């Protein structure tokens, strides 16, 4: 099933399919190791529901909804 990363339920894992971002924003995401095929686990939402913490390549990284809705994952 295809989802954008922000729709991934907490506690679930998925694989990155593509980044619908460009320019600097795309580069920052690639820099985090979010390339095609990378496994991402949604860990927890912050108290107000956004951002969400993800487990990416051994590191916990919090991302905002504005960015994660442009990351398409295979769930």
């Amino acid at each position, binding site marked *: 099933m295809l989802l954008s990363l922000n729709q991934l339920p907490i506690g679930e894992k998925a694989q990155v399919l593509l980044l619908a971002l460009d320019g600097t924003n795309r580069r920052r995401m690639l*820099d985090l190791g979010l390339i095609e095929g*990378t496994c991402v686990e949604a860990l927890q939402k912050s108290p107000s529901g*956004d*951002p969400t913490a993800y487990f990416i390549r*051994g*590191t*916990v990284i919090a991302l905002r909804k504005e960015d994660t809705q442009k990351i398409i994952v295979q769930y």
Partner: protein
Amino acid sequence: MSLEVMPKDKVIALSGNPNVGKSTVFNSLTGLNQHTGNWPGKTVANAKGNFSHNNKSFILVDLPGTYSLLANSVEEEVARDFICFGKHDAIVVVVDATCLERNLNLVMQILEVTNRVIICVNLLDEAKKKKIRIDLIKLQDLLGVPVVGTSARSQKGLNHLLDKIYEVSYDFKQFHPCRVKYDDVIEQAIAMLEPVIDGVYDNKQPARYLSIRLLDGDTSFSYIKEYSCIKNQLDKATALLRSHGITSQIYKDKIASAIVIQAEKIYKSSVTLENISYNSFDRRLDKILTSKLTGIPIMVLLLGVIFWITITGANYPSEVLSAFLFWIENKLLIFFDYINAPLWLKGVTVSGMYRTLAWVVSVMLPPMAIFFPLFTLLEDFGYLPRIAFNMDNYFKSASAHGKQSLTMCMGFGCNACGVIGCRIIDSPRERLIAILTNNFVPCNGRFPLLISVITMFFVKISPFRSVISTLILTGFILLSIIMTLIVSKLLSKTILKGVPSTFALELPPYRCPQFGKVIIRSVFDRTLFVLKRAVIVAIPSGIIIWLMANIKILDISILKYCSDFLGPFATLIGLDGIILMAFILGFPANEIVIPIVIMSYLCTGNITEFDSLEKLKTLLINNGWTWLTAICTMILSLFHFPCATTCWTIKKETGSLKWTLISIFLPTAIGIILCFAITTIARFFNMV
């Protein structure tokens, strides 16, 4: 960055991701006390220090922590420029053993620039606890450069690291580091460009790295294109890429992916997780500290507890200290009488200089000596990034950056540090917002004023006195945070328009703080540092105040002229001329505002002994203070122009007089408007 280097000294750069214990390694090697903390972005300005090994001397340069060399932020740019073009003899890349994969990304990029690299796998003790097993020999084989395992906090492995630094910087061995292999066409394009760059720069520049960056269209290297031979070859190589369908974006993707995949490969063949759920403790703790239900309440509670401990704990030592210092004052007076010193000399030194000094020390030292270590413990533990995580949504709705809460936390210590800390924010617009609003949170120089005024005017003596003081203080801090958000929003709707950029915040693993070290370090590094600054400012101000109070023109002191001049305006905003003057004279350091007020009242009145807050309160009330004066003084203390050091730092960081002036004007205007409004309302309803 300029370095003064003796020809025989070897320069070693210390690089690594943020928050991998780089500063701890730096301190252990050099003995310098660079402040360390468990959150990304601690090294805000480059530190350098010396050490010697095998009778050779070395200079160690601590670079800001970075995730990559792509120069997304000011910090990354500083690190990249030094790694690529700085004159260094070796680079030590410190990596975190508990999240090696991410760290290897930077390692692969640095290996592209230079062969002289030593990998320092730090935090091995933490990794061991989490049952993460790292095969260091395998890692060394795969990377092709020396790999040393360390636990810098307990000094383990550092000698081995020194040996390797010595070997690499003196070229005892040649190393053949592993290079990332890119797509065939990209490798062809690099091969076209590399020899030309090497030719032009006589092999003195990292040609492979520069080729990759030039093909990427990285504008920070466009000066290289001024050589027409390089430009022509670049055009040809780019044409080759395009003819194979590799557009600019595909190129960037392929480069990034190749590095990430290589890092992953090396990680997988050298690391074994003996316990798959090795970070379950961190996750459980995060569930409590950042959950919807408990996240924010725990945050406010922690803040409150810190303030409560500070207020309660500081009371007694403050009284003892001031009793002692005023006992000395009496002795000094007796001494001056004994040697028949002229009255003016006695006045300047004892009533002016010494007394102001005594006030600053007795009022400031105890709360600082308690607050700083407590705050540092939280920092060491790794809680601050969780604050940023909890608060981010509020900052987002103000169109600001979530990491602004980290720079705000730094501001609690010192606003100038907070302003420099804004370098961790990569988008220029959001960084500027963070810089301009940093002064809205009170620094340690302003806490003593808030605490003592609250204790004097709003709390009756009772067993709950310190609890109530804490609640009021926490309220004022929340007000300053809310004001930060409002002003951030205002700025991003007016002069700093824009949409938030991408935001990625690392939540590092929790670490058990090293209590002993934290306490010693924060007392000596921070407390004494801030105190020293206050003392340096307090001495001349004490003299100035005394002179102003005692030099008379037409039988009226200069102090009276000044306070009479400021009086009418000060009354409008609920203060008096003296308080307003104290704020202005306190421009060099906020710590001396209250001492100046006290000094000025003392110079005009006859009361001389003040060894407790109760007596101080009497003095203030005798000089016309009411609860309104107290509130307005506190509000103005929260919202007024930054101190001189902070202004200077803002000018340096923004490089613009305009933004510096705005940072002065903005909080001052807000403070004055608030005080005016409160005063007008209070007077209208006859509440005073």
